[in-house]
């Protein structure tokens, strides 16, 4: 077991799966000789050749559509979108095609593919290199949506995604790539899609988060502990399907739900989490549900002042938890 970066988990999962299964291919802009603009695929071009590590022409609909075709004909493509913000041109291929092919063909066809994309802010990426796009895809049955927050999960979840028989949106918070370090177990292992991760048990308030926000929530919980507040942190990890049992069990224990996400507030992932709790565990609640989120402005500004203000962070999370307990 060695301590590694989150992006190492991504790279190792791809390398091992490609080595183990000749059907696995990677395609995207600059994934070949360049090894990806974040270097997620560094070394793969040399190892597996240009037939399997494919520098795509600049067009996301093309990348998604070609990947679907590959998946329909026996391959297991990993399609990289250079930034989640640039996935929007592929929306039709993902929503109309990848998500619906099994259903519309009554199980005659299916599309085992992964779409990987770096999302999220805090890197001076401004409006178009900071977006969180997970919410759009959570409304699309037929897809799965996964967000890792530790190096081990990055690797284990990506392996599960590659082996999955259905299309998986695998979203990597770009700020976590080299910020989040941790041990990755040696050898082959997977982390199941659909199961939340109990980051830390607590009894006063449940904090639900994912990606970078799960890391921040953990930091906030450590801070809160010093003040005598016991916060439970649940890393959702899979956003579609949500781990309903884990969410409801935690609320039944703490009776308070704080949901943290960086995306625009309205109709962000936490709206569904809140709705789920309000439907299934209303009588468990000792306080109103609270969402701590990015604001409802079109996207994250470039300048430091506003970018910092846009992002939730450990201090804001701790403050929100305190307020929930005080009320």
């Amino acid at each position, binding site marked *: 077991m060695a301590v590694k970066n989150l992006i190492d988990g991504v790279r190792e999962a791809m390398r091992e799966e490609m080595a183990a299964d000749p059907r696995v291919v990677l395609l995207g802009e600059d994934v070949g000789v360049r090894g990806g603009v974040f270097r997620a695929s560094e070394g793969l071009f040399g190892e597996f050749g240009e037939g399997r590590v494919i520098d795509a022409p600049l*067009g996301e609909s093309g990348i998604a*559509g070609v990947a679907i075709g590959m998946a329909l004909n026996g391959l297991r493509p990993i399609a990289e979108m250079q930034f989640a913000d640039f996935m929007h041109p592929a929306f039709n291929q993902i929503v109309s095609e990848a998500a619906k092919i099994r259903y519309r063909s009554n*199980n005659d066809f299916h599309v085992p593919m992964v779409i990987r994309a770096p999302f999220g802010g805090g890197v001076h990426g401004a409006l178009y290199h900071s977006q969180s796009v997970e919410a759009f895809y959570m409304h699309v049955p037929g897809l799965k949506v996964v967000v890792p927050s530790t190096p081990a999960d990055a690797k284990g979840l990506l392996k599960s995604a590659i082996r999955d028989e259905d299309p998986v949106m695998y979203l990597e918070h770009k700020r976590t790539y080299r910020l989040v370090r941790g041990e990755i177990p040696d050898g082959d292992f997977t982390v199941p899609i659909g199961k939340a991760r109990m980051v830390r048990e607590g009894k006063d308030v449940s904090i639900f988060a994912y990606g970078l926000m799960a890391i921040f929530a953990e930091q906030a919980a450590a801070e809160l502990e010093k003040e005598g507040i016991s916060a439970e942190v649940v890393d959702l990890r899979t956003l579609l399907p949500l781990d309903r049992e884990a969410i409801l069990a935690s609320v039944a224990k703490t009776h308070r739900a704080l949901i943290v996400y960086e995306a625009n507030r309205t109709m962000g992932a936490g709206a569904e989490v809140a709705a789920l709790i309000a439907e299934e565990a209303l009588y468990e609640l000792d306080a109103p549900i609270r969402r701590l989120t990015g604001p409802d402005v079109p996207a994250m500004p470039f300048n430091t002042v506003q970018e910092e203000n846009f992002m939730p962070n450990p201090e804001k999370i701790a403050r929100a938890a305190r307020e929930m307990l005080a009320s």
Partner: protein
Amino acid sequence: MARMKARATAALSLTPEAVRKAYRDMLLTRTIDERQWVLNRAGKAPFVIPCRGHEAAQVGWGTALRPTDFFLPYYRDLGVAVSLGYTARQAMLALLGKREDLTSGGRQMPGHYGWRERNIITGSSPVGTQVLHAVGIAYASRLRGEDAVAATALGEGTTSQGDFHEALNWASIYKLPVLFIVENNEYAISSPTSREMAVQDVSERALGYGMAGLTVDGNDFFACHEATFQAAERGRRGEGPTLLEFKTYRTVPHSSDDDDRTYRSREEVEDWKRKDPIQRMQAHVLAEGLLTPEEDEALRREVQQEVDEAIGYAEQAPFPTVEDMYRHVYAE
């Protein structure tokens, strides 16, 4: 690469048996199509997307490839499906949304083909998406060292979509064996070709991709068959994709919901009806002695009966169940 124009006169490779089968496919396609329309007008079928006028083009390309090739037809391609073994019964089951419909179990609108066993890839309604799938399919086959070709069809209006461009670009960069078959029927619903492109022929679009492009008489079964066959051979030889344009016309409205009198003259429609591809094929088989007039008559009766039987069967067939609706969202 210069644009080529060609009009093949006959496909030397076709046996008399193959020509008779193609003629029968065209007749069956036409008959299904006509009867579906009648069922719609009788209030029995909510929606029909006809192919009338396209039969030569469709049966032409559907019969020119191998079972190991891949077929990505579009919603108008009943003739392609029929040429690959899709029966009247199946067409009628799909029309009425019945459980036995092999393309989708009654989930999709009629005309959305898909049949894994025959390498007919499932299609959707948003136009042009399948064109990219064909590229990925061809890529996968080549990666495995197989010589399969992926053939996909679309309307000329659909060439305006971004996906069309991205697909032709990919296929030409990677020199993939993809056939882009445009059934140019002069209209995208009401929109004439002049509102979809500033070139005369769809095949000119190939030029910007360094790709071979060919315009073919789409009402001539032999020309369509031959052009497809040759383009597939080019693809197999590693010479890259081809853009094939089959010029034809749909002689009925766009769909059962359309009223084509709002956008085109009756004279124009009548003109094209006189160029009917089935009459032309009939004239050929009779002139060449492939069928006697009596045999032709018998064949037409046989086809009518097949369609009658199919309607009866489909009308009796059960609908899918409510429980079925929740299945196959993901692997089970």
